[in-house]
């Protein structure tokens, strides 16, 4: 896949703090990319550098193959974590103002804004003042502002903070829709289930450095602990299950509807899933077999703790 953004050896220090040290990674075109890390890891600094709000002390960013310049900002959409709007200004004027700053003409901006307002069922807000809207509605307006210029790269810094579940769902659907239409999305978030649901790749920052990088699926595989969950319909040959040196039983329990669930940990590296399944079939009737992969949250905590 073609690389849309290439972050090369970016370093940035503030007066008393190193924010980023030699950060290098690529963002493939058309993917949803998660920028993860605990508070103070340097995520927002990196996002601001990509948006050219801050200048890095060292390093470069490439947009496709060219060094990123101020003129490229028209291809970017940005929903910052610290967000706000002009309270006394009308919604339509505000959206058109920011769209014009992103290089659209007034007519293009109006046309595009009307389309987006219609798609998100927000046409009734068109002539309202920002101060008359709820926080969630204001956030939706900001989201519209960030996508009004049909960005090639959309940067979302904590996009789900302060939203109710319905709006979170709406935002997620919009993000998926944008991806389908070719937009590359960079999300910085603490909400790990969203990362799992949306992101194709992630970078994990800690103490200003990259500590983990890769595709979500392969990272989960990499951090798996060889745990399996198997559900049997009684009767089960308990003795046969218990006497296998390749795994150990971590947990057993009977469900309210009478089935028995075993949680196993495979100890032998050469003992494959196929081997396990073959052995277990002999002990009873399996109705569910599941390899337990770590959640992104577990990977996140695990990696950060080990740092």
């Amino acid at each position, binding site marked *: 896949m073609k690389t849309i953004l290439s972050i090369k050896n970016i370093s940035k220090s503030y*007066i008393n703090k190193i924010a980023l040290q030699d950060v290098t990674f690529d963002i493939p075109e058309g993917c949803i990319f998660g920028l993860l890390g605990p508070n103070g890891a340097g995520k927002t600094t990196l996002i601001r550098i990509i948006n050219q709000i*801050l200048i890095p002390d060292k390093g470069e960013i490439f947009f496709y193959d060219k060094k990123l310049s101020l003129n490229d*900002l028209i291809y970017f959409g940005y929903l*910052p974590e*610290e*967000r706000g709007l002009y309270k006394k200004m009308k919604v339509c*004027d505000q959206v058109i103002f920011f769209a014009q*700053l992103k290089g659209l003409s007034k007519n293009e901006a109006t046309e595009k804004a009307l389309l987006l307002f219609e798609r998100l069922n927000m046409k009734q807000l068109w002539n309202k003042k920002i101060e008359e809207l709820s926080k969630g509605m204001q956030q939706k307006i900001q989201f519209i502002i960030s996508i009004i210029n049909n960005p090639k790269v959309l940067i979302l810094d904590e996009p789900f903070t302060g939203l109710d579940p319905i709006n979170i769902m709406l935002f997620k659907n919009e993000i998926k829709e944008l991806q389908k239409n070719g937009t590359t999305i960079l999300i910085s978030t603490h909400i790990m289930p969203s990362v799992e649901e949306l992101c194709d790749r992630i970078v994990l920052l800690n103490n200003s450095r990259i500590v983990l990088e890769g595709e979500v699926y392969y990272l989960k595989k990499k951090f798996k602990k060889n745990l399996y969950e198997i559900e049997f319909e009684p009767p089960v040959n308990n003795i046969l299950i218990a006497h296998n040196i390749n795994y150990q039983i971590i947990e057993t329990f009977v469900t309210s509807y009478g089935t028995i669930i075993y949680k196993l940990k495979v100890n032998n590296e050469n003992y494959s899933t196929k081997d396990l399944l073959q052995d277990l079939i002999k002990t009873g009737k399996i109705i569910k077999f599941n390899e337990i992969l770590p959640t992104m949250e577990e990977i996140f905590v695990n990696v950060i703790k080990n740092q």
Partner: protein
Amino acid sequence: MNVKKIFIVLKREYIERVKKKSFIILTLLSPILFSLIIFVPVYIKVVIESEEKVIAVVDSSKLFYDLLPETKDIKFKYLRDKTFFEAEQEMVKEGYYAVLFIPNNVLSIPTVTLSSLKSPSINVKLHIINSLKTQIEALKLIKNNVDPSIIYAVKTNVNVNVVKINERGERKTISSDLRLVVSVISAILIYIFIFMYAGMVFKGVLEEKTNRIVEIIASCIKPFHWMMGKILGIGLVAITQFFAWIIITLLISFIIGMSLSKTYLMESLIQNNQQLIPFNILQQSQLNFSEILKYFNKIVSLINFKVIFFTFIIFFVFGYFMYSAIFAAIGSMVETDSDAQQFTLPITLPLLVTILLLSTIISNPDSPISVFLSILPLTSPVVMLIRIAYGVPIIEFIISVLFLIAAFILFTYFSGKVFRTSLLIFGKKITYKDILIWLKS
């Protein structure tokens, strides 16, 4: 420089502010209030005081019968057979404005009594005083065998025409009285204007910072361009308001002026500005209206309003740019109004000192301190406006403007640096040390 983006910000700043109800109300009401302050007293004088006032005269000395001069609105009725008491009794019935009682011994003790239902106007009192004074003086002269016409012939008014000569030998006539008023008013106006609109820039930046709009804006436009758009937009608001005030004031003046008799208006204006007319003219036994009008026109024509207006615009524009760039930087560094005080004080201190030195500057507009303060960019807008009415050598004027423009460029450049860095700093108190580091970076 991305001119298009600066223009977009400028347009937003301008339209949003000009659309505000508070702007419309202030723009419309200020000249109306200003006109009312000027014209209500004039109107009262012209319309209310121009009613004919008949003053009954009871002259016990019998010296002044038919001798007191009458005006368009002041008439005298001599009650030869009535006592002062009887005349007072008839006041309401006969519709007298007042009763003037001249005692027997008025030549030795020149005190008369004016009795009226309401306090007599100052004009009436002045007219009676001047008329009696002239008559009494004439009577005394005749009594001493001196022809009054000789006295009036030798009476001399001395006027000093102050002439200023520059290095090239060019001569300029100075009239200081009205100049003083014009210079102080224009200096105060420029001070108010600069701080009013630079304050608007400060408030605007502070609002964007506290509302957290800054980051989204900073991702669309360079902070420096944004700052320039904002300063230019609000500057345009200032110019709009300024010209709207001038036009509305002129319009109101014209309408009111048309509705009042021109002569009455001028007469009243002069009477309102009697303090501007030299004492020696007031002392003349007869107030010659046409002479006063001539004098008034002369002193007005001596003031070069075009130069003052031009100076006002130049120094307002660059003074506003310079102060608003500084104020924008301060606005970007703080999160509340009160936090800003530590930064605004050193900036406004030179102007405060200037205000304290105002009387020194006015009394000696060409002294070294006045010249220095009119060149120092932080004080020049106010001090130059004071000096300009008295005449400033062209070279000093040019140096002052150049220094102001240089300071504007320098402050805008450094403010831009501070603005760019401090805009996204939240929850941290910024110190002078931080500013120094940013400026060095």
